[in-house]
């Protein structure tokens, strides 16, 4: 299962990861290797098997009461923010 350069570029874009030109073949190789390895799954007979999304079979989602429990802590939280102004998180301008 060899990944092409284009496929790797698409994946890197979807995942928003900047890769240097020298990194690309390295990841191409390791990812191809991993995909080849996990390709072994193809052999398994899974006809009529329900996919297991959770290791707690039969349990269902608990519902929370509709009450407000949180208070404004934005000043404290924004101590971690790289760039803010007037309480807003800033990013380079996005044009819609």
């Amino acid at each position, binding site marked *: 299962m060899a990944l092409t350069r284009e496929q790797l570029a698409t994946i890197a874009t979807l995942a928003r990861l900047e890769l240097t030109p020298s990194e690309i073949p390295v990841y191409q190789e390791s990812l191809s290797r991993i995909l080849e390895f996990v390709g*072994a799954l193809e052999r398994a007979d899974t006809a009529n098997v329900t996919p297991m999304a959770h290791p707690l079979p039969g349990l269902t989602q608990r519902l929370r009461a509709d009450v407000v429990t949180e208070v404004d802590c934005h000043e404290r939280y924004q101590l971690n923010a790289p760039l803010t102004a007037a309480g807003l998180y800033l990013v380079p301008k996005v044009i819609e």
Partner: protein
Amino acid sequence: MSALHTHTLSQLAEGLRRKSFSSVELVGELLARIEKSQPLLNAFISVTAEEALAAARAADRTLAAGDGGALTGVPIAHKDIFCTEGVRTTCGSRMLDNFVSPYDATVVAKLKRAGAVMLGKTNMDEFAMGSSNENSFYGPVRNPWNPQLVPGGSSGGSAAAVAARLVAGATATDTGGSIRQPAALCGITGMKPTYGRVSRYGMVAFASSLDQGGTLTATAADAALMLREMAGFDPRDSTSVETPVPDYVAALEEPIAGLRIGVLAEFFDKGLDAENERCVRAALKVLEGLGAKVTQASLPNLPLSVPVYYVVAPAECSSNLARYDGVRFGHRCENPRDLNDLYRRSRGEGFGAEVKRRVMTGTYVLSAGYYDAYYLKAQRVRALINEDFARAFNGVDVLIGPTTPTPAFPIGAKTSDPITMYLNDIYTIGANLAGLPAISVPCGFVQGLPVGLQIVGPHFSEARVLSAAHAFQRVTDWHTRIPVGYA
């Protein structure tokens, strides 16, 4: 009285209650040991000396008043994946190098309430992805038994710290074996509970349906004590179960005569080092000597557990790590040209190679055209593995085998091919896929390096798994061995 650092967690808790020594004395001694060990072992990312001593003083006051919880004044460390309020929480990554958590993980809060004193945050493979602690932005952790070797991962820092007796107990997380494998390579006891037993709130997510918080300690009795305080329902975690927490400590002395042990054929494959096998089989004989009954068992789909894991875990992590974008916290690149550049470079710079590998693998297996063949297929095989376990547990109480195929390996030995590294988890991954409780205890040495014995039980059978491990430790002394230079 022997040196304090050789005491087990349980002995320290008892000693503090008896006022045989003070928490301040104990904390002071351990902080000195940590400082001395750091240049070589590098087990810690952050040491919170000031806060620890303040907490120790408060603990001593509490103990003097005759009050206190199960762990009052007892020093522990937290894997740097647990959010700790006001303290840097890095997950071993450049991405969170500057991140000071505004809240405590539930596990941290619970242990705090039980009176434990945090000495610092331990080193780990970045975002819990790795089996050797070579993937940390803060440099590798070294195995106290031999500094040229890896301690295992991803909880390498916590394991090395406990093995070197820098702390008597440390929290850790296990997604594919990240508690048990380092426990085995470091000669200590590592416990991963049932999925949902311990709250994941505040435990930075890697693979949400596999991650569980657990313990690294010298003994099973210590694990029982720590786990009892950590476990329990948390309304902030939708995957947390409401099953009441038994008193694991009280259940420790449960005799194991008649315990039905299943030995998995798949665990004794050609990948298992012959010497490791020898230690494990000897351990099984010891258990038989205590009255346990050993039978053959098989999990036919288990060999596919590593491929399943390396589809499911990357898929979940690719999504869990999307929040690291340089906007609200964490690493942000300099002078981003536009939004896309902000994302790509912040993430490109913030994440290490293994993380990027897994994020990209995960992105691929979830993408259009591949979802069915990879992700859905893996979850179906996961279901088969789960069924295998359920069937096996119909006839046995626990499954026992080796924790790892080999003892600790040299730093740099397995970094060239990801698959070679991934296969370290071949015996541990199954328990994560099925959400089962599992422990690793030391059971021998191979050329001076520890070997681990793994005990896996059905869902919520922690008490039995712990008591079986405890029974083994009552008649063996592998768990009392301390590496040269740290005794």
